[in-house]
């Protein structure tokens, strides 16, 4: 595999201004703080974390749907902010979580899938040919081209969303919870399809998910986020075999095995997710952490390297 970074994010911040009640003022919410990571050519990176950790905000920034408050996003050697939307569409494309709301219910599949080409000014015949070709690739029957989304099942709709993403031949696919709205048997079809397409089109993937078994199955490398920060990054096997950060360990232990008798996990973390408007001082995880020491509540750990892994914890290593 080549070592060239196709997409890189460096020290990205995103701050929202959140209104406090009816007469309250506005307070800043740091959805992302100094997030850096990269995706190499042909690589699948998993992004994992719980609700509110900033993973969807990051996905939107990578798609150019949100402007970062600070920091740089480079794609294929260019600053994402300087890339024209038409060109951006040929570099990075999304697959969203819910195929029920991400497809226009009033347009037929052929139109939905062909729209990026229509916007690029491609002729009707050529478009038609490319749409049929891509429907074959994603495993949809050709007659599905004339259907409306409501006539399709959840899995078929997600295939339509993937076809639409692929038709402009992007280099990177950003999949934000691509299977969490789907049944298990449909999830496996979509994950298999993404794997096939990845090698067929030499795609790079970012898989955003809260489901660790999906991440483990799909990703080469995993980035773990907590409260807007990257807390651990490692290749998939190291992360699952020897996680360093207490938060990653808690996430891993929370995953329920399908082998009966392994028992319900004891989670080594306290319940409550902190208020992102008033994040804890020091390490963002310390109020829930079972091994936190005095230093953790005052001094924020930086992401440091431990062998091939990166981890932001005072007590790691």
């Amino acid at each position, binding site marked *: 595999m080549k070592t060239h970074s196709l997409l890189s994010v460096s020290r990205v911040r995103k701050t929202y201004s959140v209104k406090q009640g009816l007469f309250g003022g506005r307070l800043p919410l740091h959805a992302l703080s100094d997030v850096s990571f990269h995706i190499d050519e042909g690589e699948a990176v998993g992004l994992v974390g*719980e609700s509110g950790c900033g993973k969807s905000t990051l996905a939107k920034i990578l798609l150019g749907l949100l402007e970062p408050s600070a920091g740089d996003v480079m794609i294929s050697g260019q600053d994402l902010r300087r890339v024209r939307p038409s060109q951006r569409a040929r570099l990075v494309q999304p697959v969203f979580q819910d195929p029920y709301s991400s497809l226009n219910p009033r347009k037929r599949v052929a139109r939905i899938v062909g729209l990026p080409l229509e916007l690029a000014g491609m002729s009707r015949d050529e478009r038609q040919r490319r749409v049929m070709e891509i429907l074959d690739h994603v495993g949809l029957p050709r007659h599905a081209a004339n259907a409306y989304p409501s006539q399709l099942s959840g899995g078929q709709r997600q295939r339509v969303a993937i076809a639409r993403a692929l038709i402009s031949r992007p280099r990177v696919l950003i999949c934000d919870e691509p299977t969490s709205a789907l049944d*298990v048997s449909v999830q496996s079809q979509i994950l298999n399809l993404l794997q096939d397409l990845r090698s067929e089109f030499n795609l790079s993937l970012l898989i955003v998910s809260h489901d660790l078994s999906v991440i483990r*199955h799909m990703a080469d490398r995993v980035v773990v986020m907590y409260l807007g920060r990257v807390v651990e990054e490692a290749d998939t096997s190291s992360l699952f075999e020897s996680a360093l950060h207490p938060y990653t360990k808690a*996430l891993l*232990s*929370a995953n329920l095995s399908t082998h009966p008798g392994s028992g319900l996990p004891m989670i080594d*973390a306290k319940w*409550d997710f902190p208020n992102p408007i008033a994040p804890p001082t020091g390490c963002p995880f310390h109020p829930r952490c079972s091994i936190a020491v005095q230093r953790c509540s005052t001094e924020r750990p930086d992401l440091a390297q431990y062998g091939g892994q990166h981890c932001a914890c005072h007590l790691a290593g």
Partner: protein
Amino acid sequence: MTMLKIENLRIDIATQNGTLHAVRGVDLEVEKGEVVGIVGESGCGKSLTAMGLLGLLPRSAQRSADRIRFLERDLTKASVAELRGIRGNRIGMIFQDPMTALNPSYTIGDQLTEGYLHHRKTARKEAVERAIYLLNRTGITAARSRLSQYPHQLSGGLRQRIVIAMALMCEPDLIIADEPTTALDVTVQAQILRLIKDIQAEMAAGVIIITHDLGVVAQMADRVAVMYAGEVVEAGPTHSIFAAPQHPYTIGLLSCMPDAARRGRLGQIPGVVPSLIGERKGCAFRTRCPHATQPCRADIAIHRRAGGHSWRCTIPDQTANTRKS
């Protein structure tokens, strides 16, 4: 002791295109102190089965059953008033989404005590004490001050614990938990499940847990019923269902799960669920089954094995096929 025994439960829903047979003759038993998992994919009838037993169905739905014996009563013959006396009292319910299960315009305290006051006709003080006890029991700190809060002031995990406390207020004999952790984060999910399991063991209550998540059933349930297209296609002790599944649908479902021990391509179940409209003859899964043959079009016998493992299939033993997949 069998506390709940459902025999031949059917739920029909009238639609413009004909009668939709959503639940097609479900049998289900729950012993005292036992956790029974109902697992299946969307539309298989698992939630409707639970709602049907409680008599909480939309008007368009028609329920019939040979018998629904709960403790000493037959719920098919119970009057509306009798059912009201059972729901929320002898049978507690935990629903999926704690935001919609709680009323946003009433305080936590009002909602926790409402059912208790109604069923027990006690003084408010006693109800409040019981609520505080249960909030503490579910690990909620500063329980007394929570009573005056509104649902929107609490996180998802907290709200779900309140819904659990609410289900337990009247010390129910049976708890029905419908996807109790689907809307929650993974670390919170594990904690909520542990809480349900601990309390269940402590109260020796029966639990029906309805979920699409095979990991949840594997760790929670003593017995499992797998539903497909309105029928229970396989049922039995959790260990035998996961170690030696017999129905091709169960086998397929398990092979679809990403598993650390088995990299590479995931199993797939080809095709789609058949329409539930109209009567059906033969096996519901035959259109997607890799082993379907001519006999699958006729009535399907139920195979039973010692230990209570049963399945509906023309193939008497799938163990050889299990090992292959």
